[in-house]
């Protein structure tokens, strides 16, 4: 709403500068976008909130200014000269849909001269950002900007039978509106029709029709000034996708009492600028007339909600200036500042949204000034709690960051086609019914899809080395219910170690991914790596990941936490990822639970008092023999002094015959009772070698 400063002065004798007025308005509840000094004087750009339709006119803003500066509001009381002929003989109005149209007033002016508006009117409209058309049309716009109430003018002679019928639209009824569009309606819309009601000549409260439009040949004018039901108007505007100055005002709730006044004001201006003869009286059909509501406000409630008192005089002055006509009604009426003070107020017709005591308290507070309520910090009465998984998530995140991963945040909207690449079979995606585009039409069913996109972005921007993680959610549908699951997604590509002064470069590999994930697993009692994994992963370098605690429990058949591995080349190809990419996704709630359990179960193990001894075994093993076969074989000997079995070197080729590989295994012996003797170590070593030879066909290599 462009508030023309000089227009404001028509209604209140404010002397403060436009900037000052704007700033005071802002601090009392009218948001101000700015103040401009235009060619026609200063203009305050007010962003009126949707609950204040009364401020969509200069008169309403002037009322606010009056309340702030304690200046009287100059009331509007137009008294246009009327002829002897009666309006009620010239036009008939019938409201068939009183639930949509609460009031309809009509006035008729004969023998007007439609012509361009005078300069002052053009200037005033231009300052408000409205184009000038002709005097009569301009006047209806001007009065709307002045008083905040929309009007419509018809060419009286084109209204059949000079009769208006306000009714619901017929299903699929059509009409061409003033903007030249042919529009179709449904029965929730309120139509203005003429004659027997069969022809629509306007959409009530939104826009008129072309057939009865004012033109330069119009002689006689019918002024409509009505009141329409706000919810119906909002619904209609949305249905039609047609938002007009009129629909905004009626949709937020215009003042039904203003209808007749605004019509009279328009008549006065038409007589002044277009001449003619105003018929006497007004046709006013007002089925929606309501008695004003009474609302009470008490000092006790002001104190309870606001925490600080407001003086009686302030309360009464603010409420009076805003039109609430406060009356003290308590027993202690004489006592200023009484804690028992209560006022009965009358809801003004332009403030339908003020219905409750709290609404009046807001009115009092905003005019009094919010800065008058001293800030204080309330005492906490109970302990505060973090999220249940806060500690686990924090440790997880910090561990990942320590491992070199950067946290990312993504938008879950992705293209269905992309999502489908990674979506497990049988999973229903959460599709949007109104996506912004086909590129973002579904919520990701896995975090992988957005992780891949983040890697893609980096590769496309010359960033070849990236290790990323996201703690987020994936979204799926179970029938018509939604399921959001917390997941950790990991993505890595390029070098695990970049070349520097001291180290050579090394590419990120499956082993990096496995090691990094196992570092997380360590917090959760360990991960178990199993054959499986998604089909979008490389068949030779993928795994499903499970919790050790699950593997060893009854619930061993539970589905895995997730998958990890190298992205399959064919998928990488499709995404134009031109280097090896490693991805993993784990469900977090079970990980968090396992982390908590592992933490609770952890106990100190006394440090050994005796030295440990390491022995290396250089083995020649057949391809297909796994490291886990070696460890199981060694462990099956039941030697309790064996504290660790590690693989320390692995190679093929050179001196190693085809079909075999060489594995260096380091076994650590540790006794809790005594220092181990050479003889004991020798004995254990012989047992280990013979078991490996016997069960795995391993050969001991001479080192």
């Amino acid at each position, binding site marked *: 709403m462009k508030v023309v400063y000089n227009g404001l002065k028509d209604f209140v004798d404010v002397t403060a500068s436009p900037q000052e007025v704007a700033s005071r308005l802002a601090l009392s509840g009218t948001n101000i976008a700015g103040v401009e000094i235009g060619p026609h004087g200063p203009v305050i750009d007010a962003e009126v909130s949707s609950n204040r339709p009364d401020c969509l006119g200069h008169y309403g803003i002037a009322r606010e200014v009056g309340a702030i500066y304690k200046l009287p509001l100059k009331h509007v009381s137009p008294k246009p000269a009327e002829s002897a002929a009666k309006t009620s003989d010239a036009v008939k109005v019938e409201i068939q849909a009183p639930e949509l149209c609460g009031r309809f007033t009509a006035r008729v002016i004969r023998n007007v001269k439609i012509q361009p508006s005078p300069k002052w009117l053009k200037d005033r409209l231009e300052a408000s950002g409205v184009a000038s058309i002709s005097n009569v049309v301009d006047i209806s716009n001007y009065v709307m900007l002045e008083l905040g109430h929309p009007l419509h003018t018809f060419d009286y002679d084109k209204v059949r039978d000079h009769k208006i019928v306000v009714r619901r639209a017929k299903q699929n009824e059509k009409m061409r509106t003033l903007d030249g569009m042919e529009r179709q309606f449904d029965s929730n819309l309120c139509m203005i029709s003429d004659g027997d009601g069969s022809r629509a000549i306007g959409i009530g409260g939104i826009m008129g029709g072309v057939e009865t439009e004012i033109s330069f040949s119009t002689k006689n004018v019918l002024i409509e000034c009505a009141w329409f039901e706000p919810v119906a108007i909002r619904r209609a505007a949305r249905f039609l996708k047609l938002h007009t100055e009129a629909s905004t005002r009626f949709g937020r709730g215009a003042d039904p009492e203003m209808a007749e006044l605004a019509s009279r004001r328009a008549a006065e201006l038409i007589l002044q600028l277009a001449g003619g003869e105003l018929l006497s009286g007004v046709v006013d059909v007002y089925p929606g007339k309501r008695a004003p509501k009474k609302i009470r406000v008490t000092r006790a409630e002001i104190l*309870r909600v606001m925490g600080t008192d407001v003086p009686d005089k302030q309360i009464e002055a603010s409420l009076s200036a805003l039109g609430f006509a406060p009356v003290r009604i308590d027993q202690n009426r004489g006592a200023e500042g009484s804690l028992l003070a209560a006022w009965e107020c009358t809801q003004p017709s332009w403030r339908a949204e003020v219905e409750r005591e709290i609404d009046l308290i807001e009115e009092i507070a905003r005019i009094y000034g919010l800065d008058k309520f001293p800030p204080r910090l309330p005492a906490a009465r109970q302990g505060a709690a973090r*999220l249940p998984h806060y500690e686990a998530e924090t440790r997880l995140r910090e561990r990942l960051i320590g491992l070199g991963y950067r946290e990312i945040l993504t938008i879950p909207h992705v293209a269905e086609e992309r999502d489908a690449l990674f979506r497990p079979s049988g999973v229903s995606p959460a599709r949007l019914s109104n996506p912004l585009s086909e590129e973002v039409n579904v919520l990701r069913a896995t975090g992988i899809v957005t992780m891949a996109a983040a890697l893609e972005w980096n590769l496309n921007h010359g*960033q070849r080395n990236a290790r990323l993680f996201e703690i987020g959610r994936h979204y799926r549908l179970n029938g018509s219910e939604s399921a959001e699951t917390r997941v950790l997604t990991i993505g890595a590509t390029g070098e695990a170690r970049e070349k520097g002064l001291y180290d050579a470069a090394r590419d990120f590999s499956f082993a990096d991914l496995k090691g990094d994930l196992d570092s997380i697993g360590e917090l959760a009692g360990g991960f178990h790596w199993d054959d499986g994994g998604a089909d979008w992963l490389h068949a030779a370098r993928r795994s499903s990941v499970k919790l050790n605690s699950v593997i060893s429990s009854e619930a061993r058949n539970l589905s895995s936490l997730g998958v990890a591995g190298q992205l399959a080349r064919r998928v990488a190809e499709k995404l134009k990822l031109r280097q090896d990419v490693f991805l993993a996704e784990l469900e977090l709630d079970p990980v968090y639970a396992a982390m908590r359990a592992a933490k609770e179960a952890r106990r100190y193990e006394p440090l050994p008092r005796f030295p440990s001894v390491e022995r290396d075994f250089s083995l020649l093993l057949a391809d297909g023999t796994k490291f886990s076969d070696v460890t199981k074989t060694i462990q099956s000997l039941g030697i309790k002094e064996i504290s660790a079995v590690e693989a320390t070197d692995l190679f093929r080729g050179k001196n190693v015959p085809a079909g075999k590989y060489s594995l260096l295994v380091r076994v650590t012996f540790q006794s809790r009772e005594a220092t181990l003797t050479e003889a004991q170590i020798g004995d254990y070593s012989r047992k280990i070698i013979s078991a490996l030879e016997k069960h795995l066909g391993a050969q001991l290599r001479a080192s």
Partner: protein
Amino acid sequence: MSGILEKTELTFQQLGASSEAEVDRLFAEIEEFLESEQIGDRETFRVLWASDKKGVLTKIRNNWLRAAPPSTRRWIGPRLEKLTHSVAFKLKTYVERQVEGEGSGERVDLSLPGVIRSVGSHHLIRQVFQEIEGIFFSIGFSVVEGPEIETPYYNFEALNIPEFHPVRDDMDTFYLDLPKDAKTPLLLRTHTSPMQIRTMEKQKPPVRVIVPGKVYRRDNPDATHSFAFHQIEGLAVDTDITFCDFTGTIEYFVKQFFGPSVKTRFRPSYFPFTEPSVEFDVSCPFCGGTGTSAGGGTCSKCKGAAWIELFGAGMVDPAVYGFVNYDAKKVSGFAFGIGIDRLAMLKYGIDDIQVFFQNDVRFLRQFP
């Protein structure tokens, strides 16, 4: 003292040592001798102690360790290992001591970088979340989370936003495509406020929570708009919470976040679920609330306004209590919704909201 060197020529048996205590004594003598060595020529030291053929270490290994019966050997091994480490350390520090003494030799180039072990980073939005959560946690706010896919009831109706309410026009909403038999439509929450309702449904007053999370509005993306962004909701309800407690809490937060010198300002505003409602401004922390930048021009952060609009808030509208069976006559409270992305952009001078979601490592690296 040189007597000990001669002893290394003999075996334990020849020395007549047969107990662990005697082994200990011999090694103590050796260690003492090593400690007493004066700084001299490094090569002389090396030949005496560490030469492969005739060094002390070699002699001990051959004469004491290898010649010993297994029962004695286990006493010797670890002690020899310890001695070997001591000798190696002395050899190494010879070089350093010479540098200290003579001011010459190979010195590290301090301008060369050290070995950088690559570590990761928190996303900037996460850092801001953590900072704000910490501030509110310190004054008794618990942290809760809620679903991003919501029902219209929680996102709108229970927050006093009935269908066709004009405020819905400002919150263009994504809806899910559901099977025809779905009981309720589902939408992507347009604010974190639904958790006000969910929290109060579960819990009787006193309530003091914050809700960090993602929210969605169907806006076309540009430098200042993203259809997904982040909020922290706050809610405090009790029998004695007033507007003064509300402004005090917000002021505390802002001074913690932007520094103690910022001034705060509350302007009346409108939200259907708060009454009175306010917009909350801070004096521009970048120009000190003058509107003028250090160089003399208009401050680019507040555009000369001296104030920056931060977020909307207010006292919980009594109508909301009706939806959660709270007695509006007995309880009162406040709620606020802080936009995290905007705050981060403001604080760190980011001019395009999209960088948060592109996750370019060059961006991520800037906020370790």
